[in-house]
């Protein structure tokens, strides 16, 4: 098919351009090709959705565990700094 309609995007190319698409960094031409592909390829629609879900899942890591010894060290530093507050 690449031979037949070479300007049409393949799924393999699609997955390499997903990040640029989400960043709004694709040229108008590539963005159009990308969107043409999304119109009919439900698999790539799913892939794009998975990418969105992946980065959303990463956002849920914002509050994560700090090792106790690191926390204690920082708390000590904070208390020391506090003592200097007028």
């Amino acid at each position, binding site marked *: *098919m690449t031979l037949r309609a070479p300007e049409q995007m*393949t799924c*393999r190319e699609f997955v390499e351009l997903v*990040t640029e698409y989400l*960043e709004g960094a694709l040229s108008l031409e590539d963005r159009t090709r990308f969107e043409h592909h999304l119109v009919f390829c439900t698999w790539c629609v799913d892939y794009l959705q*998975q990418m969105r879900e992946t980065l959303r899942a990463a956002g*849920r890591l914002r509050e994560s565990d*700090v090792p106790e010894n690191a926390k204690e060290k920082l708390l000590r530093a*904070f208390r020391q700094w506090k003592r200097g507050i007028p």
Partner: protein
Amino acid sequence: MVEQTALARTISDDERVLAALRVGDEQAFLVLVQRLHPSMLHVALAFVPSRAVAEEVVQEAWLGVLKGLAQFEGRSSLRRWIFGILSNCARTRGAREARSVPLSSLGAEDDSEPAVDPSRFRPPDHSHWPGHWSSPPTPWPEEQLLRREAVEAVERAIQDLPPGQRAVITLRDIQGCESAEVCDVLGISEGNQRVLLHRARSKVRAHLERRLQAEKPR
């Protein structure tokens, strides 16, 4: 009730946190640490060769934050300011460490890394639909994604990333920084940042996919 924009919310959050820190509110400090510390480690590891050194760098950065709190004018967001301090500490320390890897070369990690295993597409010489999915992705059920296991899988996947990719995805997707902020903190170009982000996200997605597949009842 007027809806605040994300920026307005950040500014008022920052003001609240700053005010609390400046009067010595330990709880506010711990909340801030909880929010930023693990990400600061990931960023430090982009500049220095070992976890032990990275932990020292992050501790040093926090000290710098406390020292600078009184003078901080709020011209940038608190987070940006803190990562800026971290970046400086990490760079300085990285320059001193004999085996540090310059960040500019981290963009070239594994140059020919495809986002998806090529065997999942029809080969270029296939008679029909070369380059199209042969093992396509299947949609992820919402409830699976919301479970703790999914978030843990993402966390593990990020921890396993090479340092440059890990730092970028941490700042962009965990912390929600804008790309300009990330380029600033890491001292890399926009293009470089995008490549690292692409590779990071692709790997994490693949890892999450494997994890979710494994969980499905047979």
